[in-house]
């Protein structure tokens, strides 16, 4: 089982992500520096939260042009799983791996709090630990999480079952279109989400509702390795 966390200058949830991955997979992820042009063979790549390159220009915009992102795209094209959390989601939309954009929160303020999410689609390896319609509580912490895409794109995402999580109707923290909190690419191997599942894997901290994502990924990936 090989996992990696991509580290950009300004990433600040890289350690949190590594701790969650190690707890679930039992092995430490590789920490890959943004200048690396090549990636080893991997089963899962995680783009962590933070402020890559200071989020200057636009959140995620400069990271999407970094050398390592070309390598991430190649791996994604081969079907390797890619999970982008918070700033990682912003990098995925900026790089075109996921459709749409993440705009400034509707109230223009940074928001950090627990939010209620509803599991919309379990049809991906990321979501197999969850049940459709399940409500979970996971924290958010972002300034630019207001998901937007044109109606045709939103309809297609919904029609194809590519909305992984929505904010519960009463609990949209940023004004996202159709309460979208996380989406998949067409192939289902790239997930971007604003909430932080890696912060919700310990009952002494923010609860454990994020844990199912990591245990689900372990279940999804272990057979692959056995077969391989």
């Amino acid at each position: 089982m090989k996992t990696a966390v991509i580290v950009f200058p300004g990433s600040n949830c890289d350690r949190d992500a590594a701790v969650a991955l190690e707890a679930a997979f039992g092995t430490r992820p590789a920490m890959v520096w943004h200048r690396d042009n090549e990636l080893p063979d991997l089963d899962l790549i995680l783009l962590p939260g933070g402020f890559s390159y200071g989020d200057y220009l636009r959140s995620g915009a400069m990271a999407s042009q970094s050398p390592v992102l070309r390598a991430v795209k190649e791996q994604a094209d081969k079907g390797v799983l890619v999970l982008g959390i918070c700033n990682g989601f912003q990098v995925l939309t900026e790089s075109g791996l996921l459709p749409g954009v993440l705009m400034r929160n509707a109230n223009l303020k940074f928001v950090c709090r627990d939010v209620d999410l509803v599991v919309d689609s379990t049809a991906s390896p990321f979501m197999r630990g969850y049940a459709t319609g399940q409500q979970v509580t996971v924290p958010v912490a972002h300034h630019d999480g207001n998901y937007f895409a044109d109606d045709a794109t939103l309809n297609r995402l919904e029609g194809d079952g590519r909305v992984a999580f929505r904010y519960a109707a009463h609990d949209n923290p940023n004004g996202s279109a159709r309460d979208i909190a996380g989406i998949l690419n067409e192939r289902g191997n790239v997930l971007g989400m604003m909430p932080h599942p890696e912060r919700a894997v310990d009952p002494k901290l923010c609860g454990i509702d994020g844990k199912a994502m990591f245990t689900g990924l372990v279940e999804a990936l272990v057979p692959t390795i056995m077969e391989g």
Partner: protein
Amino acid sequence: MSAAAAASEAIEITPELAAEHGLSADEYALILKIMGREPNITELGVFSAMWSEHCSYKSSKVWLKTLPTEGPQVICGPGENAGVVDIGEGLAAIFKIESHNHPSFIEPYQGAATGVGGILRDVFTMGARPVANMNALRFGSPDHPKTRHLVSGVVAGIGGYGNCIGVPTVGGETEFDPAYNGNILVNAMTVGIADAGRIFYSAAGGPGNPVIYVGSKTGRDGIHGATMASAEFDQDSEEKRPTVQVGDPFTEKLLLEACLELMATDAIVAIQDMGAAGLTSSGVEMASKGGVGVELELDLVPMREEGMTPYELMLSESQERMLIVLKPGREDEARAIFEKWELDFAVIGRVTDTGRLVLKFHGETVGDIEVAPLVDNAPEYDRPWEPTPKSAIIDTDDVAAPNDPMDALKRIVGSPNMASRRWIWEQYDHMVMADTNQRPGGDSAVVRIHGTDRALAITTDSTPRYCLADPEEGGKQAVAEAWRNLTAVGATPLAVTNNLNFGNPEKPRIMGQIAGAVTGMGAACRALDFPVVSGNVSLYNETSGEAILPTPVIGGLGLIDDLDRTTAVAIPREGLNLVLVGKTKGWLGSSLYLREIESRADGAPPPVDLAAERRNGDFVRGLIQAGRVAACHDLSDGGLAVAAAEMAMAGGIGADLVDTPEGLALHGWLFGEDQARYLIAAEDGAAIVAEAQAAGVPAAVVGQTGGDALTVGKTHTISIHELRRCHEEWLPSFMARP
């Protein structure tokens, strides 16, 4: 000679120019004596910065010396970049609080942001990874036209910096009072964790060793920031906007990681951040502490702008910069690390054995000052002071009883100073680093020590209205409340950092407040074994002659040995006994009740019995550490009723409180602010009361948990829903007012 050097020497030094630099006639005379000649403009700038109140503590030092600073837990007390205490298992906590009051009033976003950036650097300079930020904020009246602009800018600035660098902002306090209309207070605190055997200090050493500059380039921002922070404001303060620095948290994040990477090697001799007075104070302090000289080639400093003069280079307060003395021959190794993080790196000088600060610019000497007298002969004033007149003690019988105590409670929990601060702390990432166990809103923030089941508890406290009425009792109370807040989560209090915010010390009345508050703080710190290991002083917080309330802020740090044995304020379930620990007399002088319900701000504040604080607190902590307490809250602003209401609101479970005990008035019982008290929720209330009596600790079962309302004596009741509505509504609607 270069043009700039020539220009710098060409400026004629007059007593008027010295006065413009904030130097008195006597101070300028002393400079002439030390130099043995007239200083040039660069040298004058160096003296002006080093002898500013901000850098020299010249008015407060005589009082600061009276504070206790030692204890078995103390690794490093005041005098370094931050204080260091032992937290066991080979680790140390490094922490400090610092003000950025003046810049935040002029430019709230950048002022507050660079306040956070500065205190973070103070902590990681010493080898710690910062793990938590806290703050203590004071704003003017909610009715003042500037208040919302300042609240909004300061909160965004604190969040903007802390969120980006990825250090959680886990708590703090915010108050409003007209006395801060012209001088807001922004005090920022950082706590970091380091290997106890690898603490980095600032004493330069080893003549010939290279002095290197790392971080951002130097620009013209913040020149004279330290001098500005050492003077009163007047109508023209807006014109000082260019002296406010501009922060870049992204660069600081890179600087943090690069410094920690370099610190993992053994290449560093000494390291010091460039904060107030920039290259001047870092260069001088490193030389002074090491008893050596430093020679700097100022033209090698990485510059953001063309044509900068030696004077500007020495006094710039550009952010995110560090000065490092390396072991000889380690430059390439260090350079590689800083280049990896895409930061500037330049060898700008060397350590010498001359004991002099020598400044060169394109080969010419543009400054030459003996370091020892510059530091040791810095002025120190025992300024005249007047004791604050004692306020009359208010008899509870002389205060009208409320018609409806629950209506009074509603007004208090919804008042500007008690309303929920959720609107503020939801703009701070308080969970990044994934170790936040107790979030903002409780008695103390609790942050797990990464990779262990132990934790640090952190609080910031001050009650300025008590300090105004009686600085000495107020000083004691600030320390006692911090100690209680740590105790209330089950932590063993370790040490404090303090931020003394006062008006103009040249006024005997203000100096009397400083003397009183420091005396009270010292007494409390001694009695509670709670030494002061770091701190900051901010004076001249006056505008057009109006001073702020005396505001000595205490940042307290405690240690929790087992995260399974900690408590929070939320009532977790029904059927628990509520036990009030500590003696209640019903003290209403200087209370919130008096202010919010009776519109009176008078009376002696509650006296602090330090022996009772210690006895009661040790008893409560013992119960928590034995796993016998389900919830705990210290009693402070608003007394018993507010504590019970906050516990009910946090847990969503109500409580029935008993009727007013014999001999007390209803409002004294519910809203009195007697000190040394805690309200705890526990299974075995009767047994706890019996044990308390045996230990000489007053305690009584005063209620039960349950239901969805707070009830007193079966007659007065208010739903949690209604309490929450009042408590949560004020701040967001205030900030959203058209």
